[in-house]
């Protein structure tokens, strides 16, 4: 699996969402949530998924992760269909979702507990390294309740990175942090995800913060309000690092806003 994805040329699709629809059933009456959604996330691409609140963007992310099932259509990763959670896909949550009764290190090790081929010491080693990469060396034995919001999310990212994933899904990862903390974390996380040494082949992030999207994403997929279909898709070709005060940046922000409203 890993090798096939690694051999893909840059830009070729890693995640393919193919005509995915989702209905909720309410008194036997189908209630459409997602209608015929198709999109791709290419190799070395950072894709942002946005739309009006409640449109189902997080649900789409959950379908991609294999946690939820679509009513119709398929999700493929490098050619293999996603039918349930897979080890090469990982997730970072809006509310961190750390185990409060486990230390930072134990939280990261938890994500490795399915890796039978690793010894306890190797797991510990990997977990410490992931924490260190996320700027948390020295915090191994601290409980999540003793950490600030930004640090908790760093543990969440470290947990995801430790599994050496190929597809990184992020569900509003910065939205429960204050502006300043979010700003710093965005920079650090982008550098961690998109670099030559990482195992990550593609990133899909759900967000409703348009400036955040224009700052980070290579491509943005805009969903319409419920029932959601793809309202637009743009490739953001701004050079990096992106200057949030440049007129080009603002014109991109306007462009996405106009589709959202």
């Amino acid at each position, binding site marked *: 699996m890993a090798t096939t994805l690694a051999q893909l040329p840059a830009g070729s699709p890693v995640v393919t969402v193919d005509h995915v629809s989702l209905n909720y059933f309410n008194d036997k009456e189908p209630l459409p949530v997602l209608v015929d959604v198709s999109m791709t996330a290419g190799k070395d691409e950072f894709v942002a998924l946005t739309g009006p609140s409640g449109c189902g963007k997080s649900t789409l992310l959950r379908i991609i992760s294999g946690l939820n099932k679509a009513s119709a259509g398929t999700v493929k990763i490098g050619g293999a269909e996603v039918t349930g959670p897979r080890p090469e896909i990982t997730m970072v*949550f809006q*509310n961190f979702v750390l185990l409060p009764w486990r230390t930072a290190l134990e939280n990261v090790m938890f994500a490795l507990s399915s890796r039978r081929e690793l010894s306890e010491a190797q797991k510990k080693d990997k977990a410490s390294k992931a924490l260190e990469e996320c700027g948390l060396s020295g915090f191994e034995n601290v409980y999540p309740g003793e950490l600030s919001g930004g640090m908790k999310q760093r543990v969440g990212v470290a947990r995801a990175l430790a599994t050496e994933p190929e597809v990184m899904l992020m569900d509003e990862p910065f939205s429960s942090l204050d502006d300043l903390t979010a700003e710093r974390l965005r920079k650090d996380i982008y550098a961690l995800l998109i670099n030559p040494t990482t195992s990550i082949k593609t990133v899909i992030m759900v967000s409703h913060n348009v400036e955040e999207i224009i700052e980070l994403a290579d491509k943005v997929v805009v969903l319409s309000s419920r029932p959601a279909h793809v309202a637009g898709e743009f490739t953001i070709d701004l050079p990096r690092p992106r200057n949030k005060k440049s007129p080009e940046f603002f014109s991109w922000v306007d462009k996405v806003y106009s589709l959202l409203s």
Partner: protein
Amino acid sequence: MMLALGLSILFALTIGIIAARNKRAEAVILPLLDIFQSIPILGFFPLVILAIYGALPNAIGINLAVIILIFTSMSWNIAFGVYEAVKAIPQSYVDLLDMSNASTWQRTKQLYIPASMSRIAYNTQTSWAVGLFFLVASEIITLGNKSLSVTYGIGIGATQFFSSGDYADYVLLIVGLILAVVVWRFVFLREFALWSEKYKMMEEPREQHNDPIMRFYSWVNQRAVSKLFLLAQGRGVNRFTSAISRFRKGLKYATLIFVAIFALLVLETVASRGPPGIGHLPPTSLILSTEASVAYALAVSFVRVWYVYGISVAIGPPLGIVISLNFKLYDIVSPILEVIASIPAPILLPAIVLIPILGHSSEGVAALVIMLASIWYIIFNVMAGVRSLPSEIKELPRVFGVSRLSAWRNVYIPGAMMGFVTGSITAIGGAWNALIIAEYFTVTNKNGTTTLLTQTSAGIGKTIVLATNSGNILTLTLAVASMTVLIVGFNLTVWRRVYHHVTKRYTYNR
């Protein structure tokens, strides 16, 4: 029973409001509530009966004693609810009334009572179940001494039908009781709870209405016993922090008051029974030898309570976790468990004796009765704990594809920990109460003779019942006092520490 409930609510309102609004009263009332909450009230019942019967030697006296018992069993929990509700009223509301020069009665009517309404409703659901247990138990206890029995009641009916071989009537009665419980619980109390919603002050998070069981049992403890533990420990609940130091000071006074009430009760009893009379203390050697036998019985019962608790721990939490992780299973099983749990254990005792293997072992019977009176608290609290975990946390094992073992070790068991401990505290309390029927149980036949159904070789429950029947005030007093000291001491030391640790580590907040 309704009378007792009405009295309880009235009492709870008075005490709760006074405690919440008067700092000096708060310092004494809170620790006092804590003590009353944790002692096995059933143990006190014989003393109360003898005391009241001494004053009113007729059926009215006995019925009064029963009402007092039920009232006592139901009050504390509701009083806590009122206290917390009134304490939580935003200061601006109080200021408003201050500025309008409202009288105490107006304040009570306009603000305190409406503010307490929803808490009273929720806590009543709990108190009702507790009260029912005591109702049946008290009727049955009085049977031991023919001169002291209530003339009619469910408990008596059940045992009489049983002893005279009317098994059909016995079963019919239990079915009837279950129906009554179901109707009362799911219709009346639920409606009351829903109706009281409109009295909610602020945007408190609404608990799920489709889930009466969970709501019900999480209230048993979290709102009462455990909150106080938390309070005494001085952690977490900020708005109560100033109350903590007062609580510590108040504990002394509260203990004094408690001892005074106890002494009064004993004196009253002694006086009503004639010799040895007030002031004539029995010789020290007699006290010591009685205490020795009481201590032995207490030790036996202590071991009994704990091994039954051990069995409950092996069954309860895994069952609770499995049920609450599976939505379909939960929907089917939890109402069934709820109904089984609502049948007071004493009423089932005659049937338990008939179980072939157990019937010949009084120890087995006692263990089963104790378990039936206590395991539910563990199961329902564990269920409530697991259900209240955020769904994302419960999903983590799937997200990271971890093994079932790792999921239980890292997610489900720690997630259930808080509910397990709060449930355990109440379960142990329930177990001590159950001893009094579990260790010695007689039924009265229609012709007035009594038959001994089961008795264990030794135990504090048996000691108390026997002492009651023979009017042995000394043994009774020492037994009740020793048991109380043991339980309160245990709560203040062991449980409080465990509870503190668990709240610190095992509560879920982001």
